[in-house]
């Protein structure tokens, strides 16, 4: 479609609904009766594959992408979508009905790009055929009057016309033009790679779409939060989130396992960007399959680990304070790290909940914050720095029914407060080793320390490599189609009035997006002139005439009278 030389208004027969002005007036009167089913299909196909339709579809694609960037998207930030439901309760269901929270998977979005690619295929494939055909046909004969071409030049030669043409053909052949000669003329063409590039570009876009589809069908994405000192195996049940492609079954998952041995982070300690992270290092060990060799690696941002084509990325980190809870009966019913999630401040203040369903006589729940570097700002606890310089936990305690037996899945990061009563415990930030003694003998919670956690993204995308190839091909095609120009050069030689041979050179760039054919033509005309001077012995004598007087120089001087009409098509 790019660089379609024939304006589509002229290329496609003007259809009934096509109110294009350039439609040739010689069209027969529009009579709907010959429009049978085939006629309509043909008309529809022509409409679809016209440049105008492709343009409109391209525009639509751009416009359709806009809501996907302005509204929260289910596939990117599901919690923001939920937030949107809360803040716009009337509007949100309507937006959801229009798939506006999932624009890039919406049927109407798919309709646009599928139509676009259909239009593209319908345009590009016939053109490939035409290109193959035209690459085998010789260039057209030279027009009669070369001075009318966008680029033209004239010079004189002492050679006979035939010899001058031979010399010209030699120059053009040397410059790799495809040639055709006739009676008194040479016609040459070059730059088929432009059209080739154009086709490669568009076909590569089709291939790119197929690669994306391949990834969507056979790939998967998953997330997993991993606390320091713990392990997980790549199975559906062990993953926190699992987004399989359409044709992925749980048994297709690569059976690796991974352990986080240690995680370290460093931060800017002074200056205006104090607290900004500098490095994250996750020291992990993993094996490709159960019982396989264990390898150690340092997982960093921008340095994923590749296991069997599956890649594991570190995409987040945080703290998991460790709690030990003794219930009213004196039994230790809970002793484990609990991941707290950052609220987004630079000090990495994090919130989380502790649920102790096994406590007796009442279930216990705690909600609170973890502060890596706790400071007291006017009676308000804040975290001044993301590193654990002064770690504190502040909790609110509840007892009652956690509501975990109802069957409905529950987030591990929120408490369902319906069946809970808050216990009257004076809020006091706990340092490691400190405890809360719950009133009424309900139990004791001890903050025993903290660990760090990382969140991992696990992705498998078989379309990734094909997409890269398609992208590189698209770029190469784009460059060819922009910077190679398809041009024709014609030379005519005939005897002039003064016995010398007149050589006319004409040039025509059929497409020249990057410009520069005028310069190429000037250089070519100069080379042709030099070549047509023939053996150097006759040169000075013959050129002395025109050069000696001023008049022929201004009227005749060939390479200077290079003209152009600007439009190159």
């Amino acid at each position, binding site marked *: 479609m790019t660089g379609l030389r024939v304006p589509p208004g002229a290329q496609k027969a003007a259809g009934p609904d096509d109110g294009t002005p350039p439609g040739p007036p010689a069209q027969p009167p529009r009579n709907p009766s010959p429009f049978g089913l085939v006629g309509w299909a043909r008309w529809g196909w022509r409409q679809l594959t016209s440049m105008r339709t492709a343009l409109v579809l391209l525009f639509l694609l751009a416009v359709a992408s806009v809501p996907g960037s302005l509204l929260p998207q289910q596939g990117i930030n599901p919690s923001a979508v939920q937030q949107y439901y809360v803040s716009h309760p009337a509007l949100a269901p309507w937006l959801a009905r229009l798939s506006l929270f999932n624009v890039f998977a919406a049927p109407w979005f798919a309709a646009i790009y599928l139509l676009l690619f259909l239009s593209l295929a319908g345009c590009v494939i016939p053109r490939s055929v035409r290109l193959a055909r035209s690459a085998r046909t010789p260039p057209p004969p030279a027009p009669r009057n070369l001075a009318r071409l966008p680029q033209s030049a004239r010079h004189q030669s002492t050679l006979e016309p035939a010899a001058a043409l031979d010399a010209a053909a030699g120059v053009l052949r040397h410059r790799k033009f495809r040639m055709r000669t006739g009676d008194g003329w040479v016609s040459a063409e070059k730059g088929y790679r432009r059209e080739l590039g154009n086709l490669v570009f568009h076909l590569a876009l089709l291939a790119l779409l197929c690669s994306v589809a391949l990834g969507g069908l056979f790939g998967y994405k998953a997330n997993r939060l991993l606390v320091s000192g713990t392990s997980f195996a790549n199975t559906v049940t062990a993953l926190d989130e699992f987004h399989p492609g359409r044709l992925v079954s749980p048994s297709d998952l690569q059976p690796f396992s991974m352990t986080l041995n240690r995680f370290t982070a460093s931060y800017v300690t002074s200056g205006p960007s104090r607290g900004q992270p500098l490095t994250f290092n996750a020291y992990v060990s993993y094996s490709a399959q159960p019982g396989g060799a264990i390898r150690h690696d340092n997982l960093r941002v*921008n340095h994923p680990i590749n296991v069997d084509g599956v890649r594991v990325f570190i995409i987040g980190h945080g703290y998991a304070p460790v709690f030990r809870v003794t219930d009213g009966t004196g039994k230790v019913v809970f002793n484990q790290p609990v991941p707290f999630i950052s609220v987004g401040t630079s000090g990495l203040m994090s919130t989380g909940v502790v649920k102790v369903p096994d406590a007796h006589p009442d279930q216990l729940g705690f909600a609170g914050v973890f502060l890596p570097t706790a400071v007291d700002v006017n009676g308000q606890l804040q975290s001044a720095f993301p590193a654990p310089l002064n770690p504190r936990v502040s909790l609110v305690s509840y007892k009652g029914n956690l509501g975990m037996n109802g069957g409905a899945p529950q987030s591990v990061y929120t408490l369902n407060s319906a069946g809970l009563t808050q216990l009257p415990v004076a809020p006091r930030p706990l340092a490691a080793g400190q405890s809360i003694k719950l009133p009424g003998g309900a139990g004791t919670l001890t903050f025993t320390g903290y660990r760090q956690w990382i969140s991992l*993204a696990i992705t498998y995308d078989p379309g990734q490599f094909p997409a*890269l190839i398609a992208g590189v091909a698209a770029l190469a095609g784009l460059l060819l189609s922009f910077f190679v120009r398809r041009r024709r050069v014609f030379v005519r030689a005939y005897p002039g009035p003064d016995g010398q041979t007149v050589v006319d050179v004409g040039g025509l760039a059929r497409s020249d997006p990057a410009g520069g054919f*005028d310069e190429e033509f*000037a*250089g070519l005309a100069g080379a042709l002139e030099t070549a047509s001077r023939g053996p150097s012995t006759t040169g000075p004598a013959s050129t002395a005439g025109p050069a000696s007087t001023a008049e022929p120089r201004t009227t005749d001087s060939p390479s200077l009278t290079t003209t152009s009409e600007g439009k190159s098509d």
Partner: protein
Amino acid sequence: MPDNQGLSHLSDHFLIVAVVLYSLAVIAFAADFAFGRRSPVVAPAQADVPDRVPAGIAAGAGAPPASTLAAGTVAASTLAGGTGPGSPAESGGSRPRTPAAPGRLVRIALLFTTAGLALHVAGVITRGLAVHRVPWGDMYEFVISVSCVAVLFFLGLMIKYRPYHLGLFFMAPIVIIMGLAQTVIYTPAGPLVPALNSYWLAIHVTAMTLASGTFMVGAVLAVVYLFAERHTRRVAAGLSTRYGEVFRLLPSAERLDQIAYRTVVFAFPIWTFGIMAGAIWADQAWGRYWGWDPTETWAFITWVVYACFLHARVTAGWRGRRAAYIQLLGFGCLLFNLLGVSLFITGLHSYAGLS
């Protein structure tokens, strides 16, 4: 590796002086419009043609030196004949309308621009040295670098096509952008967050910087084109033209359109490459090569709109004004991505360094 605050301050000083020099260039360009009456006396103008012309003609390779003379004479005839309102500008409208040789004020303006660019480049380099990395890690650095590319490309156009009187329209926005960069979005030199700590920063953001700076030049050309085209239509319709004098000095509408198109043709593959490099980086950093992050989405939208422009240029009924509007729309998307998305929409690309 601590950041070198001394170098960072030096960079600030360089850039402030660059803005001052650019401002002086703008004043000189404007003064040329106002007072630079191009005298019909050709001699002085022609005198400096030979040292200007070779750069433009050099690509013409085989052309004998006589062509320099020819360019000189064309320039001279344009100067001499350019008294009737609009006559030479609208007549040919094609390539060999060699622009007039630069007047004294234009030469002064170009001198200021070149000196300003030298300091601009120095400012960018010292900023990079101060932070031990490519100096486009936050929005301030990105804007400074994009405007640097724009000025560089603009000077390239000046050498190649010599549309001297476009200088005012180029340099005025540059001064405004640089001024805003120094005041509103200034960010002190600092280290990068881990996600940006990759050699892909140099590849991806460099491509985006180059393409953005070039698209910026294309957008200015499109705006000037729209005015020139309107003027041409008014002249053709026999309507009054108050600014005939201005448009006579500018390249013809057709020429502006052509240069703008070539600018986009230059920038579009770079932008494409930049998106692809970004995709490869995203694949390494976040585990997917494309995720419809807001910044990615808008880079895609920008790409699509510029693709529309390129297609519109070869579609009957869409050339000229409509194509120019599409090009401006594309640049609008680029700007929105740079400013709107970075500042107001949270995404993975939120690296502006502003709070």
